[in-house]
């Protein structure tokens, strides 16, 4: 932003000239990077397939309709498994995330130098690796099935829950903690009376939010053998049973919408 006086006349520009050049440069660089990336991707693309895609899409759509409604009767148990993967996985992650979060928060960590970096590393590794990759590894260790899915969701969610929770802990009102400390309370008492009540609502909100995300993620874990409705999806795609595929997609759509509605209701009730 700048005002320049040319002669007697004040001239106004939104930005000073160097600022303006910098912004132009940033746009130029950004555009160049995007174009370059596009070129690299398109070099690796067989355009003949892409040109064929509309016909393929129409073909697939016609094979997918109408959905095999009767197949729904076989989907209830996988859906129940999916729900369990999400719920139990979230429960595990909460149990494990709480100590990690208290170790990661600056104001509650036992040691900023040693414990905090470890906690932060746990958080970032858990968050960086997708639940499908966790499931891929866990299926190798634990064998295929729901249990691997539960553990995968649990491990993936630790980072998410712990990160949001430790940020909430760092934002608490210090004066309340001081007040409890001033009564001569021990460390554990300060924790239960000074800190926990303050972060409890945030904590409940985070858990429900993550549960909602986990429902969505647990629908696909079956693709790598970790249980839930993804198993049926994988099997139906492999056997080219497209009407079953569309039925499964509808079931997933409905489940996700319901879980989103439930989590919105609960979060609304908490806040």
């Amino acid at each position, binding site marked *: 932003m700048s005002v320049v006086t040319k002669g007697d006349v004040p001239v106004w520009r939104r930005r000073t000239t160097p600022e303006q050049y910098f912004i132009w440069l940033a746009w130029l660089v950004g555009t160049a990077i995007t174009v370059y990336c596009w070129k690299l991707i398109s070099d690796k*693309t*067989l355009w003949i397939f892409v040109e064929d895609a509309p016909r393929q899409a129409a073909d*697939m759509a016609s094979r997918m309709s109408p959905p095999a409604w009767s197949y729904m009767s076989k989907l209830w148990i996988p859906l129940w498994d999916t729900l369990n993967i999400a719920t139990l996985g979230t429960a595990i992650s909460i149990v494990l995330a709480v100590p990690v979060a208290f170790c990661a928060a600056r104001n509650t960590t036992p040691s900023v130098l040693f414990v905090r970096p470890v906690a932060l590393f746990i958080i970032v590794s858990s968050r*960086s690796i997708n639940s*499908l990759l966790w499931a891929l590894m866990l299926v190798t260790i634990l064998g295929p099935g729901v249990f691997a899915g539960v553990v995968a969701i649990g491990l993936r969610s630790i980072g998410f829950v712990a990160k949001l929770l430790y940020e909430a802990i760092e934002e608490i009102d210090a004066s309340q903690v001081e007040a409890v400390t001033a009564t001569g309370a021990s460390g554990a008492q300060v924790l239960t009376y000074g800190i926990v009540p303050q972060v409890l609502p945030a904590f409940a909100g985070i858990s429900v939010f993550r549960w909602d995300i986990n429902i969505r993620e647990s629908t696909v874990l079956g693709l790598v053998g970790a249980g839930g409705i993804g198993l049926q999806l994988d099997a139906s795609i492999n056997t080219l049973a497209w009407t079953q595929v569309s039925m499964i997609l509808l079931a997933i759509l409905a489940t996700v919408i319901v879980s989103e509605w439930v989590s919105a209701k609960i979060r609304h009730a908490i806040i």
Partner: protein
Amino acid sequence: MIANPWLRHGLWLGAAVYLALALGTMDVNWGRVAEGFPRGRDFVASFFPPDFTSRWDSILEGILESLWMTVISTVAGIVLSVPVGLGAARNLSIKPVYYACRAILAVSRTFPEIILAIFCVKLFGFGPFAGFLALSIATIGFYGKLLAEDIEDMDPVQAEAIKATGAGWFQWLNYAVQPQVMPRMIGLGLYRFDINFRESAVVGIVGGGGIGATLLTAFDRYEYSSAAAILLVIIFIVMAVEYTSGYIRRWVQ
């Protein structure tokens, strides 16, 4: 937190019943799990030391492909989500457009990236193009919804004031809406970049290109030390992206 004791105890009871049911129906092969502990130890042990060198060429290629995919799908997704997001904001659009845009957002947001990737691979063939499309669609759903919500939450008086000057619709967007939503949307764009990078590591599992394919190959060949190297590279890049985006966000504010 819940005042009514009946409701409170009822909820505990319900949770207990659910837990019993869930654990009861969960088909866990405990023998396999018990076996899993030594197996897990061997598995983890075989990750060490991470081996960056022997597969370095394919790791580098996969990571770069993931990064290109991330950049282009974030840009394309955001560009496409702006009109959809505007249409899905209740205070901006008319009823039919609103419902159409909301439907687009609901569908593109519900399905996990991997399912989108499966279909894109079926339609467009193997390779990064399918991954790029899957991530773009997911980005539209994510970004469009948040943009619409942000516009719905904006201060209506500021918007009214610009309208009262006789501004046209696009001028109104530029002067009243854009300044109000821009800072948050830049932050969310960076966040989505981060998500897209992480997701680009899995679309490869179903043939959508990127580091995921390299990772799957490493697993299939039992080259766990190479897999460990790949995972470390992913973690490192996610940390770098997070750090950079935090810096940019502070600069924008």
